[in-house]
């Protein structure tokens, strides 16, 4: 009786514990599981599919384990027969080379296709034009350059809803990783090199983005906002920034380049010509003295 009561108490505690967490988690944002853009959405669906397939094999294994432990436990009065020499069965062993092999074959095919379909360098819709934004990870902030719009911003990237955005990324600092989990998976930014990433947003709103790769003392502050707005709002934002913000000359860039953390968002107009290219070149040339930046 006492033991049963204890067990009941424990069960109630565990259920209450899980329910409390369930309630908490239903009230907070879980970006990877609540995608707001087509890329992140496909990645989320893929996650569910793979997880389901894995569970289909793992759950029977857990049941088999629990059953075996119960049934063949020494002090079980109804213990199954003890056969100490039973240690080989071609048929059984063949089965469990085959089961994981089949599972992995299925997952591999899905993986191969998904890797091509979700290649970050691949346009979401090759027929439609893309908004180009150049991204520079710096010590310790993100610079976004809009080459066509002739503006730049720090720690905030604004773009029109539904439009595919083509990011070109590099680093003027240690390696970082550019990640907006609600919109798309991440990609590294590396000095002297350029990576690419396509994404889009399905709804308007502010999405948290951050660096996922340690880059020094100010690493934790490398958080930025990805803001999706209507195209009208975007255009007026661009006009406003271009008209009222200071110019991002080479000199201004050198100011910005100084290490700083927790930098609030701010904007620039008319970034220096080919600034993004110059930042990459800085690490491509043999001597740092012969370069503009």
């Amino acid at each position, binding site marked *: 009786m006492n033991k049963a009561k204890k067990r009941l108490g424990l069960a109630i505690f565990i259920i209450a514990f899980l329910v409390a967490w369930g309630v908490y988690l239903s009230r907070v944002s879980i970006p990877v599981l609540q995608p707001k853009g087509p890329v992140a959405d496909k990645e989320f669906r893929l*996650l569910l599919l793979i*997880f389901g397939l894995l569970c289909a094999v793992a759950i029977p294994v857990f049941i088999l384990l629990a059953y075996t432990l119960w049934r063949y436990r020494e002090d079980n009065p109804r213990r199954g027969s003890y056969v100490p020499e039973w240690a080989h069965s071609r048929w059984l062993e063949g089965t*469990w080379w085959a089961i994981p092999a089949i599972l*992995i074959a299925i997952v591999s095919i899905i993986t191969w296709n998904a890797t091509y379909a*979700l290649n970050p360098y691949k346009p979401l819709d090759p027929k439609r034009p893309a908004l180009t934004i150049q991204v520079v990870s710096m010590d310790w902030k993100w610079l976004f350059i809009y080459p066509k719009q002739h503006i730049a911003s720090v720690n905030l990237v604004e773009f029109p809803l539904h439009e595919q955005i083509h990011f070109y990324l590099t680093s003027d600092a240690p390696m970082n990783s550019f990640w907006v989990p609600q919109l798309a998976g991440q990609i*590294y930014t590396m000095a002297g090199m350029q*990576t690419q990433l396509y994404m889009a947003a399905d709804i308007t709103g502010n999405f948290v983005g951050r660096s996922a790769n340690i880059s020094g003392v100010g690493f934790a502050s490398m958080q930025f906002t990805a803001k999706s707005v209507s195209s009208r709002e975007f255009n007026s934002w661009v006009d406003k920034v271009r008209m009222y913000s200071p110019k991002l000359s080479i000199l201004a860039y050198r100011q910005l380049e100084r290490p700083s953390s927790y930098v609030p968002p701010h904007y620039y107009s008319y970034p220096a010509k080919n600034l993004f290219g110059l930042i990459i070149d800085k690490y491509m040339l*043999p001597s740092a003295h012969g370069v503009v930046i």
Partner: protein
Amino acid sequence: MISTFASFLLGKLSLNQLPNNPITAGGAIILVLIPLAAVIFISVTRRWKWLYREWLTTQDPKKIGKMYIIVAVLMGLRGLSDVILIRLQQALSVGHAHGIISASMFQQVVSAHGTIMIFFVAMGLMFGVINMIVPLQIGARDVAFPFLNATSFWLFVAGMVLINVSLVIGDFAATGWLAYPPLSELKYSPTVGVDYWIWSLEIAGVGSLLAGVNFIVTILKKRVKGMKMMLMPLFSWSVLGSMFLVVFAFPILTVTLTLLAFDRTFGMHFFTAGHGGNMMMYVNLIWAWGHPEVYILVLPAFGVYSEVVATYARKKLFGYTSMVWAIWAIVILSFIVWLHHFFTMGAGSDVNAFFGIMTMIIAVPTGVKLFNWLFTLYRGKINMKTPVLWFIAFVVVFTIGGMAGVIMAVPPLDFQLHNSLFLIAHFHMMIVSGVLFGYFAAITYWFPKFFGFKLNERLGRYAFWSWLIGFLLAFVPLYILGFMGATRRLDHYSASLGWQPLFIAAGVGVVFIICGVVLQFMQLGVSIWQRNSNRAGRDPWDGRTLEWSLPTPPPSFNFARLPIVTKRDSFWYDKQAQFTDSRPYEPITIPKNSPLSMVIACGAFFLGFAFVWHIWWLAVVGLLVVIVTIIWRSMDEHTEYELDADEVMRIDRALTPKEAGL
């Protein structure tokens, strides 16, 4: 003039390098006090001679194994105190609050935690258990190269001392445990932290490589007559696989670290940003070592589980041949998956998809092993002792962690999970269950063989449950945090993200783990206290393999008469046949003690320390000490002595008073 002389004498070393904040100072004081207390204790109890003769100069792998485990446990406590700082910081450093330590120190703590846990805890436990068990299991009297073995151990100690010196003088790498350039280059990490990281791993890594060579030769050449490869116990098979990985992977680490040291010390540009350096090369190289390293640690633990399951189920291991093939499949596959650590670097789809699929294929041999263990239990008579509990926890946790692993092996999913706390939860689930739990099981299982009494079962169970509950509580929230967009190594985050309750839950999990650790120490203490009521004979678990045929504790030469092996689990069948050995004794050659291993390691330590601080005269001295000692030792032709047959018989009979009359 004086300053030139001082900088010649001391390099970059100065008083400013001593700790300048209370937490580091506290740590440094503890680190100085512990050895000091040990020295005083040994002096007061006049045990220096004993210590020198029985331990410091020993060539006996059983003693070396014990020392490995002692060092690993001490380093485990250091790694655990890092965990406490990490969890406190991440639970408290939210919004306007900035926690208990600075960002720079937090990053050092994170890096030290990873480095210490992998190199000085997991590796230490692994080599400790290997040293103690492998020669016994294969019927060998010693390892192939006893002096080399002792040298491996002392190099491991030298690396361990160097990494701990970094807490007292200077600082440690704030770059993460694998120190990716260009962050780890001089431009972005100008202090000595990364140099400490490089040289402590360089020295310990060479030790591991030598140990790898030693155990390959030991297993291939020192098996007792009659024990063909396919008759070897599974633990020895797993060690062989693991040591092959060591021999192929550790040279990559050594070279990579050397190149990074060249960059930092001599201004070269292997991995720098700019000047032709290529950081991607470093990332590839470090993982070409780093991925096999995971399997280096996991394989011997798999071997432990194979022994534990068969022994406690009192049944032959199911699918022996499959198990062996699975080990070698894992060995080979583990070398062609390294790129999955950086799918996000921008490689093309072919490359990413190839490495993703290769990674998943490892799940096949691993799954086969799991099924074989399950079917060893099936139709057995399971004695539910703590080692079996650790095994069950391993199966559950490892399977969950493994599912997370397959998920991250899909490149597009990795884009969403890479470097997030999901990844952290994944690899802790793999390494803690697949390595640490394995060695906990190993220690409980083999402890009576070396100390003559069993560990307290009840406290062992309490420790197990604390560990398991704590572990799940500490890491399940991290999976969710990963989905919430939390990345690793964050010393601070905004309150609006809603992460704090989960970080606090993870912290509570760590409290449970600490209780588990305390209980483990209590278990050891109580077991020693009550050792007389807990005596174990030769064979307390009704074992199957040769180590259980030996007297407890085994004599330095292990086997007074080499065992006769004709099949797998020979000892198990010998017991059933009530076999008694009546062959005559033979003389045995035993290696003499030597302090030179320690001398070599001292030289290596000073070489490393000198490179960290640019004290060039000391570097030359350190290097000379190493080279001259090696030459000196190779000239010595009297490194062994012989025990004659009568002496062997006397020792053997003394160890087995009851059986002597038979």
